[in-house]
Every structure is written in structure tokens, then in C-alpha cells.
């Protein structure tokens, strides 16, 4: 099975975001990944892009967000660079804590970590790498 990959620059355009999500899911299906993988990938990619545009590339005149992904039968890797100032992922408040449960935001990273096998950020926090391995927990 060949490795499928793509790389794009995105602005905060819902249609283009939807298109890249669909392209990733089509590649995942071609590589033999099942519907639960598709659910996880769509959710994690959507949350990561939302974070990129909400917290990273917030200025419409700023650089577009770089999105790249690689799909193999045994793993999927997604990398997103928002070229923004970055953040400390370890400093994010726990959205499941009682005092935070009714906050309307702050759950994206939790969901990315729950559905991906691994989620890591570069030192400045403006690039996230998500890896998914079926059965990888």
C-alpha cells in the first residue's frame, strides 16, 4: 500500500477546511482504515485547525496555516503549523475539573489527546504533530 500524503496552506475558510478533512478521510479509507479511525481523524484535525485559527493565526493578514498529513496502513500523521506566537500546552486548564466544566471553551486539546495515539508540540507551541495508530490507544 503506497503512502498517501498531502500538504496545503489554509486560511480560515470553512469550505477549504472541509475539503482538506474530506481528502484526509478519503486517503484513510483507501489505506484501509475503518470508520472509527475516520471519526477520530476528523475530530482531531478539526479541533487542531480550530485551535490554530483561534489562538495561532488569529490575524487575517497573518501567514496561512500549514497542514500536512501522511497516511499509511499502520499510522496516520498530521502536522499543523500556525506560525503564531505559540503557547504552553502543559499550562492549559483541565476542562473536566469541576470549576471548569461549564466553561464554553478549552476542550480541543483534551479531545485531540483522547483520540490520537500521540499529540506533541514543538518548543514554541505553534506546531502540533498528531499520530494515530489503530489499536494504539
Amino acid at each position: 500500500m503506497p503512502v498517501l500524503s498531502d500538504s496545503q496552506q489554509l486560511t480560515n475558510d470553512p469550505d477549504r477546511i472541509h475539503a482538506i478533512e474530506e481528502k484526509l478521510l478519503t486517503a484513510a479509507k483507501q489505506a484501509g482504515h475503518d470508520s472509527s479511525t475516520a471519526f477520530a481523524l476528523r475530530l482531531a484535525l478539526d479541533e487542531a485547525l480550530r485551535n490554530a485559527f483561534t489562538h495561532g493565526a488569529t490575524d487575517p493578514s497573518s501567514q496561512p496555516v500549514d497542514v500536512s498529513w501522511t497516511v499509511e496502513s499502520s499510522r496516520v500523521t498530521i502536522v499543523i503549523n500556525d506560525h503564531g506566537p505559540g503557547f504552553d500546552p502543559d499550562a492549559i486548564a483541565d476542562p473536566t475539573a469541576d470549576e471548569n466544566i461549564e466553561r464554553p471553551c478549552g476542550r480541543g486539546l483534551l479531545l485531540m489527546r483522547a483520540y490520537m495515539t500521540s499529540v506533541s508540540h514543538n518548543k514554541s507551541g505553534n506546531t502540533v504533530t498528531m499520530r494515530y495508530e489503530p489499536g494504539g490507544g
Partner: protein
Amino acid sequence: MASVESRLRVQTEDDITRIEFVDRNILDEGNIQQIGDEILQIIDSADRPKLLICFSNVEHLSSAALGTLITINKRIRDKGGQLRLTDIDPQIYEVFVITKLNKLFQIHATIDEGLASFES
């Protein structure tokens, strides 16, 4: 100015308003905002609103949609109303469990169970 098409199907019977979503994927921020605005208008137009939101048509939703549901829940509570969520797909229900929002909302398997759970 063209009117914006509703993202909801709304039905009111007795004093309970049932809402279903037009969209299968509740991911787009613009749609989520519109959904929130529409539902908040429904809540604000009733004294002690009883609202049932059916997720039978929904295949995906984002954390932003969860945030909107939280806002809706708070508004209903402030008005002394009641909210029920029903027909949530197991994969989406898992999202509620991971975020512990299954403890915040009253969630039922079916519309009938949700309707029966309202206090008069």
C-alpha cells in the same frame, strides 16, 4: 438581504419544544453560532422552557458545539427550564464522556424517554 436558512427543525407540542439538526456534521463555527443563536431565541421566548434536543441526524460535532450546548444549558437553568438531549450516536456520546459533559446534561437514549423525563 437574503434570510439565513435555519439550521434546525423545530416542533412544539404541549409545552415541550423538540429540536433536530439539519446538519450531520456540526463542525463549522458559523453554523454553530447560528444554531446557538436560534436555540437561545427559542429559550428566551418562553417562561420556563422545556427543550429536547435530538441528535439522531448528527454524525460529528466539535468542542465549539459542546460549548454552545453549555451556554444553552445555563440559559435554560437561569430561566427555571429543563433541557434533555436524546439519540446521541455512541461515538459522539463518547465525546460527552471524555469531556465529562455526560454528567452535566440529562441524556436519554430516545425521544420518548426524554419526553417522559420532563418534570411538570
